[in-house]
């Protein structure tokens, strides 16, 4: 409000706005002219037409083929690198396991690579105490110092004739790294190489081995199958290889003439259940009973594949008798909580829709007695003739890498390898097991069968991913010298004495083939997309560097197979493709799958598919154990044994693994965190899902903080009321609850493994995850 107090002319009154008519007109004229003249030029500059795409002066773009390692899928990927920075990830169309498609985690690999909190130099612990919350006070040291310290300890242990006191942990590593680690273990003379397989799929392997002698997880011909009966398998979230399931789901749903029907049998309404045609809620732990009940109906109504049963199976008569006697649908219905009509209908559909697949999942297998469940489900496939046929169970072809010289051995090695393994694998405790990961804490704490003096962990994080984290923490404290090799400080690294920074999978040389699933063999290359960040070295290179510092058979074992990871990879993959071609294509695919190889397929005493496991009988006999005829070597269901008394711990803890959980030990990736749980529409969290009735009876409301307590510990999170959870269960996702590092993961959510108790399927050593009982109450 500009005004003027001046007296202008005598015509105007005092204290007026000094705005004469003339002035006003002048002002408006000028303003108008200004707007008029500037309107157009501004408008033209403002044109919505984008100017042509401009790129910076120095622009270098390339696509590098490699493979992912955020889970066991190890999918082939192509990474776009611009000016030395990786910025985009797509699938490799040459890879046929998933038809060139990748799951969301492959894209997030960029955040794995550029995680700002990666370790860039070897670190040495300076604090004397070890613990979950204790700051190790890391001090950076040089690679030479670090390697010298590690190799010195290794040499001393070996010279002290105690090579078996070395414990090696192997988490998620490329196959080339795995081969190098096991070669090292073998040359060094320690039988104690522990992978995470004992947590994941051992029950499936043992179950399959009992049926047909193949100690491997199932592979399926998803292109042609018409019916999928899934027992507790989260097909779209955590059944490896996940990318294959995601692609084939689209294919068998709507890209073939007959739409595959999917029936999901699960206690909780998972994402897979929501996408399936039918969700059948089942009492947890009773999948074995259901499988036997379905077998009963198929056998009784003569719906099985007579020809296959007659020609290629053994023990059917005994199996048939046992099933018909013990697993009547009405009995099974009571055990499983599924109405008998449903069981009849599903069994008939399964048997009469050919080809059909029965798929065991972790929800059915990770129980005491899980291997028998795996066996029972394998038998269902045999009943309907789905063994090695189009649309049925396949037997994974393994790629034949170029042979390398046998591992040399000396007296120390031989003696070491003969020692009883730390996890009691293959012993009376776990007769049919190859690795019993979760036995390690007890062995370490009790120092049985012998104490461990040194351990090296490669990308392992078992105190997060194995049941009963506290026992792992206790155990890790007792390792006098622990070396951890990983790109970041995981929960297991918290207990290390020395940290060696390894590269992520995008910066290393390697070869990989995905876990079984597709049937045909396929090998993928891993090559660095950018130079390793900071001072990190790949695991392969680290092993070569360590080996050369341990004179004797260890150094010898690593002579003649190349001097570093790159040369090793080149040597081993020379049986597939010329190197240059392999670098460009990234994928070698084996010959097409051959079906119905029945004459050579079954590795059993009878050379047929066995309903009465001759393999198991032979194994038990060898161990000097009598076989209780009747059930032990046939598929059967054993009642669930719970950890925790029902009166005190009324609810069952049922954890699950969402798709966006990374299996490399870290979850420090915001892209994954912010959309972590699609079914609940939330991120950055791990809620405890509770049925509305249960919540009401416990006086709990949405977002209330609660304690979830088991006989083994307690964790805290908040309540999410969910209609998809049965009244007697509480469901919590895996993947959160990190405590060691990470702006985007530390202190977020909770880790159900902290309250799950230690239990095993005694045959296979598979850790049980679902038989812990809990109680919940307001925090």
């Amino acid at each position, binding site marked *: 409000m500009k005004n003027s107090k001046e007296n202008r002319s005598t015509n105007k*009154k005092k*204290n*007026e706005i000094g705005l004469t008519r003339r002035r006003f007109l002048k002002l408006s004229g000028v303003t108008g002219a200004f707007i008029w003249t500037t309107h157009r030029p501004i408008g033209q500059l403002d044109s919505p037409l984008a100017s042509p795409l401009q790129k910076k002066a120095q622009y270098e773009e390339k696509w590098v083929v490699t493979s992912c390692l955020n889970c066991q899928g190890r999918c082939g990927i192509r990474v776009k690198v611009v000016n030395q920075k990786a910025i985009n990830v797509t699938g490799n169309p040459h890879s046929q396991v998933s038809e060139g498609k990748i799951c969301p985690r492959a894209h997030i690999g960029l955040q794995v690579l550029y995680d700002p909190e990666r370790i860039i130099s070897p670190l040495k612990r300076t604090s004397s105490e070890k613990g979950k919350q204790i700051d190790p006070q890391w001090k950076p040291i040089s690679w030479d110092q670090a390697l010298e310290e590690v190799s010195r300890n290794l040499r001393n242990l070996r010279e002290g004739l105690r090579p078996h006191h070395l414990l090696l942990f192997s988490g998620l590593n490329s196959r080339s790294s795995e081969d190098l680690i096991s070669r090292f273990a073998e040359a060094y003379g320690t039988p104690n190489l522990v992978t995470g397989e004992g947590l994941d799929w051992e029950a499936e392997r043992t179950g399959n081995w009992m049926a047909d002698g193949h100690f491997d997880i199932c592979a399926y011909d998803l292109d042609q199958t018409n019916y999928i009966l899934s027992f507790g398998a989260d097909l779209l979230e955590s059944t490896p290889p996940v990318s294959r399931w995601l692609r084939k789901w689209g294919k068998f749903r709507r890209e073939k003439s007959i739409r595959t029907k999917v029936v999901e049998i699960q206690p909780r309404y998972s994402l897979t259940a929501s996408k399936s045609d039918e969700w059948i809620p089942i009492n947890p732990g009773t999948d074995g009973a259901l499988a036997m009940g379905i077998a009963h109906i198929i056998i009784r109504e003569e719906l099985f594949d007579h020809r296959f049963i007659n020609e290629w199976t053994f023990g059917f008569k005994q199996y048939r008798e046992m099933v018909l006697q013990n697993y009547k649908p009405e009995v099974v219905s009571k055990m499983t909580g599924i109405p008998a009509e449903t069981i009849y209908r599903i069994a008939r559909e399964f048997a009469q829709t050919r080809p059909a697949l029965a798929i065991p999942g972790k929800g059915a297998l990770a129980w005491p007695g899980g291997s028998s469940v795996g066996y029972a489900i394998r038998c269902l496939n045999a009943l309907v003739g789905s063994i090695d046929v189009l649309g049925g169970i396949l037997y994974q072809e393994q790629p034949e890498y170029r042979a390398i010289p046998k591992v040399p051995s000396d007296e120390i090695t031989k003696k070491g390898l003969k020692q009883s393994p730390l996890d009691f694998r293959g012993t009376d405790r776990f007769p049919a097991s190859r690795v019993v990961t979760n036995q390690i804490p007890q062995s370490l704490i009790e120092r049985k069968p012998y104490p461990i003096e040194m351990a090296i962990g490669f990308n392992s994080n078992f105190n997060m991913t194995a049941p009963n984290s506290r026992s792992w923490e206790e155990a890790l404290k007792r390792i006098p010298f622990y070396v951890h090799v990983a790109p970041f400080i995981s929960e297991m690294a918290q207990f290390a004495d020395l940290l060696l920074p390894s590269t992520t999978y995008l910066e290393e040389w390697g070869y990989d083939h995905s876990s079984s699933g597709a049937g045909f063999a396929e090998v993928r290359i891993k090559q660095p997309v950018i130079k390793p960040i900071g001072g990190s070295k790949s695991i392969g290179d680290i092993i070569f560097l360590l080996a050369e510092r341990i004179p004797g058979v260890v150094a010898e074992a690593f002579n003649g197979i190349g001097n570093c990871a790159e040369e090793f990879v080149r040597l081993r993959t020379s049986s597939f493709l010329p190197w240059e071609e392999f670098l460009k294509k990234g994928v070698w695919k084996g010959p097409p799958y051959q079906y119905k190889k029945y004459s050579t397929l079954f590795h059993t005493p009878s050379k047929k598919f066995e309903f009465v496991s001759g393999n198991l009988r032979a194994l038990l006999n060898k161990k000097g154990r009598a076989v209780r005829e009747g059930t032990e070597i046939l598929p059967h269901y054993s009642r669930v044994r719970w950890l925790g008394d029902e009166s005190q711990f009324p609810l069952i803890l049922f954890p699950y693994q969402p798709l966006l959980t990374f299996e490399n030990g870290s979850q420090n990736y915001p892209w994954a965190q912010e959309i972590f749980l699609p079914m*609940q529409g939330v991120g950055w969290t791990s809620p405890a899902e509770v049925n509305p009735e249960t919540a009401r009876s416990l006086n709990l409301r949405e977002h209330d903080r609660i304690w979830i307590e088991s006989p083994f510990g307690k964790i805290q999170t908040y309540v999410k009321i969910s209609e998809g959870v049965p009244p007697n269960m509480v469901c919590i996702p895996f993947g959160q609850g990190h405590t060691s590092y990470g702006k985007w993961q530390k202190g977020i959510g909770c880790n159900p493994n902290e309250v799950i108790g230690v239990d095993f399927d005694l045959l296979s050593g598979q850790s049980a995850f679902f038989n812990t009982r809990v109680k919940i109450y307001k925090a």
Partner: protein
Amino acid sequence: MEMNYSTIEGTSKGYKILIVFLGVMVGVFITSFLVAYLKGQQVWGVSNIIPWGQLITFYIYFIGLSAGAIIISSLSYVFRRETYEAIGRLAVFMGILLMIGAMVFVMVDLGRPEKAWRLFMYFYLNNMSSLFAINSIFYTGYITLMLIYLWLIFEGKKRLAAIIGTIDVLWAIAVHMGTGAIFGLIGNREIFFSPIKPFEFLMAALTSGTSLIILISMVTFKLTRRMIQEELIFSLGRFLTTIIVVLLITVFVDKLTHLYFPNREATLYLFTGDYWWVFWIFQIGMGIGFPLFLLTYPKTKKSSRGVLLAALSVVIGVFGERAALVIPGTAHPQPFFPGTIEGPWGEPGIFPITFWESLLSLSIVSFIVLLFVLGLRYLEILPERKTEDTRALLNLTAKE
């Protein structure tokens, strides 16, 4: 009778303290604006669910007040009612300042205020189907008209002022109905969407404008020791009563329609959700119910204190009405697909009252008050203080 107008002296201690305080608040305004400009709107309470917060609420509130004030001024200049002569200039002046305030609010709320000029590229760079663009034509015309109006009043050109005043009143109606249409024409927000919204806004403008005039004139006259005719207050009070009843009918019809299908959920959320109190206590209670009671109950309607209280209640209540529109209107989760949407997308939004946003709003209000006080000081807005007034006031005070 020819009324003479004068400025206020501006010599009292109260005046000086007030000016200093308001000056400091202007500094606060600039600071809080810069904080938001540089750090981004994360310092406010707005989010992707509730994108419009305190500033937009104030913006529509002030436009309403301005339109209401201009319409009251027409009682003096268009309808030539002598009773209202005393507050005529005051009303027009308030209209201009409130409009400027509204403009400041909306400019500051923009994500990129430096591009605010884009709102004024009529027809060339503006999308004229957007009510913001149409409104910007209305607003510039409105301010220009008000400035001319005030200037004509100062010049004493009564007849021209009447003509411009008439146009201005109609324009004010268009302005505020346009502001209402910003909300009323948005089809996906059920609380907004209503053909009656522009009219509801107009009625709210009239009630709040009238009440603000009552409030400000009584307070200003009292503080500057001028007498205000009780008849003026009661006359405005009666007008206010009528308008509140019309507003009540409008709001009732609007909400009743929304309670019939389709799309009841949002209105039910307004009535019973997180922000029920803004609707029931402020909009209905303080904006309509309580003042209506005061203005019809015999004891209070006859006292200027009663009318003052009613006016105060309306002023606060109508602010609540604006807030009850803006916040729950966008807080209600949109039904993308039938069923319960899981996670945050299915939950109503939350609008926290944040420090910087509140500070910014209050400081802009202080800025307008500062302009108002300066205007009173340097322009002849208020009627001359007559010696009878002073004596009458002194008598009154002596009596008390």
